[in-house]
């Protein structure tokens, strides 16, 4: 029982991190109908920027304080993501209005290739560390109930709290601010939104900026866990089943989907994996999402798909 709960908690924490990446997908898809495959590359790019600037800034300015260096690096990395968002809108999306979904998907794949190359050209291609002072020591809880208690990582808990905070902030942003209302209007109907005077191009820049910030946060958390390296881009592929499970257009769906996938992956790996040779977590998530889709094609929280001739 103790072991089961430990796996369960591990899965929930991992799931929270998946939802962070999934959130970036959902935001952009909601606002512009673009299925943004570049989210993984954005995570890597943001993490690389963060890692390198937090290393360079103390050298340039002669700073001692780790906190100050990290804050400055975060700001600069965020600025990089804003610039990226602006460029993507300016150079790519603006020219591809009204194209088919698959063409836009391919365009984001092109952006992925570009970002992978560009990030590694300017920031280098080694493995870097992000040190934001996350405690690495494990803690034990519920020691009274089980022998030995349940081991969880403090780091994971903090990551989950940050993720939850980000989600809450985004929900507030979407529901309460006028920009958020404009974003929802655009998501609902491009033409209608445009006809009442919402500037589509600016909305797209904003939503790519928000997705960039989500990518930065995800990059920092994943980066401090795994080290900043090229394999960080595969995190995006792990997050895809999350969004089809939760629904492409739903922010809460990304969170719940992430938790389900995280738990499913860990439990399947531990209990099912040994029977078939291990390493099943990567496809298990997809198959789980697939089976789910057969019964509910729009995902858990997605908008109902209505077909009209």
């Amino acid at each position, binding site marked *: 029982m103790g072991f089961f709960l430990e796996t369960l908690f591990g899965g929930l924490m991992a799931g929270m991190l998946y939802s962070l990446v999934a959130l970036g997908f959902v935001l952009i898809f909601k606002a512009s109908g673009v299925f943004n495959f570049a989210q993984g590359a954005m995570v890597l790019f943001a993490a690389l920027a963060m890692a390198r600037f937090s290393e360079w800034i103390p050298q340039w300015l002669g700073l001692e304080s780790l906190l100050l260096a990290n804050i400055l690096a975060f700001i600069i990395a965020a600025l990089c993501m804003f610039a990226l968002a602006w460029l993507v809108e300016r150079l790519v999306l603006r020219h591809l209005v009204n194209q088919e979904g698959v063409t836009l998907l391919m365009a984001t794949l092109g952006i992925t290739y570009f970002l992978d*190359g560009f990030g*590694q050209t300017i920031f280098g291609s080694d493995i870097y560390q992000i040190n934001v002072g996350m405690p690495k020591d494990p803690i034990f809880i519920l020691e009274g109930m089980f022998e030995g208690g349940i081991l969880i990582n403090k780091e994971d808990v903090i990551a989950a709290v940050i993720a939850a905070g980000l989600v809450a902030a985004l929900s507030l942003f979407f529901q309460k601010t006028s920009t958020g209302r404009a974003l929802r209007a655009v998501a609902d109907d491009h033409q209608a939104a445009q006809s009442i005077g919402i500037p589509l191009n600016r909305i797209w820049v904003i939503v790519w900026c928000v997705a960039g910030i989500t990518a930065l946060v995800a990059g920092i958390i994943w980066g401090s866990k795994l080290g900043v390296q090229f394999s960080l881009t595969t995190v995006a592929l792990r997050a895809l089943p999350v969004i089809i499970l939760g629904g492409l257009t739903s922010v809460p769906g990304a969170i719940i989907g992430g938790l389900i996938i995280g738990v499913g992956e860990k439990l399947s790996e531990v209990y099912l994996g040994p029977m078939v040779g291990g390493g099943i977590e990567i496809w298990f998530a997809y198959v789980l999402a*697939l089976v789910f889709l057969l019964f509910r094609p729009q995902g858990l929280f997605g908008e109902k798909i209505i077909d009209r001739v």
Partner: protein
Amino acid sequence: MFYRENGQFKTSYRADQQIFPIAQDRWAILAIIAFAAIGVPLLADEYLFRAIFIPFLILSLAAIGVNILVGYCGQISLGSGAFMAVGAYMAYNTYVRIEGMPLIVALLSGGFFATVVGMFFGIPSLRVKGLYLAVATLAAQFFCDWMFLRVGWFTGNNASGSVSVSNLNVLGWAIDTPVEKYLFCLGFVVVFGLLAKNLVRSAIGREWMAIRDMDVAAAVIGIRPMYAKLSAFAVSSFIIGVAGGLWGFVHLSSWEPAAFSIDRSFQLLFMVIIGGMGSIMGSFFGAAFIVVLPIFLNQFLPALGGLVGVEISTAAVSHTEFMIFGALIVWFLIVEPHGLAKLWSIGKQKLRLWPFPH
């Protein structure tokens, strides 16, 4: 003036329904095939065969398969790499496990197993469509990646999943030099290309296109969506499977699952989009573009660096290659979203009028 159907009167139904109704098209296709079969082997050297012609032929075959599914039936698939893998590994198993199995039959059986797998993973297309389906087909990709790595039966218990074949021969004709490999692939491509061209203008091809253009409307006028979608998955994955077998047997001759990773799926989809969705000819254009571009960049960048006096390291070259490749793809999608096939048809239209303005 020269390229037009005026004066070519059809006197029988047979003549009216042939694949290429315009005589000039027929001659052009024959000339291309003849040049590919006779001219190219005389002119090209071994490096060109290995690096460009053989990959080009096999990948265009695979791109035709993907185009049938994505371009003609409108079902976006990111699992093409997996179907290639199934084709390659199952062809390997039939070839190795059954004594005296002829090479061509082994390759076709690889295609058959790919069909089965493709139809199985095509089932979700009956419920979901568009981008949801694209992600759903990734399940096939990751599942197959895992299966060929971890399940020992497929690879003869090789831990890294790598297998190899040697001494290929068809009816006593040993296929070992690059020219022979090229001709062998060319045979497959010509046969399957003409088959596909014929198929997409038949009743079933029109059903696929109806489903692509609007599936609800197609169902209303009496097209069975299940039959049309699954048949598209079946035909497409058969062709992709055969291409996978060729890729493994002829091009690589020893391979591991990484040869058919998700990057391969993306690459095939790129070929279809850049070549032109819903065009057999476009598959060839797309394959040529995607095969030649990285090789060109690889050769061209260090030369360019040398010209301006900058030594470009190998890592920098590969990163710059990534950047230029990505940027070119985006640029291409912006300037010609309908692909190279569209340029081709514009060219043909112009040629009809040439040299007159109207």
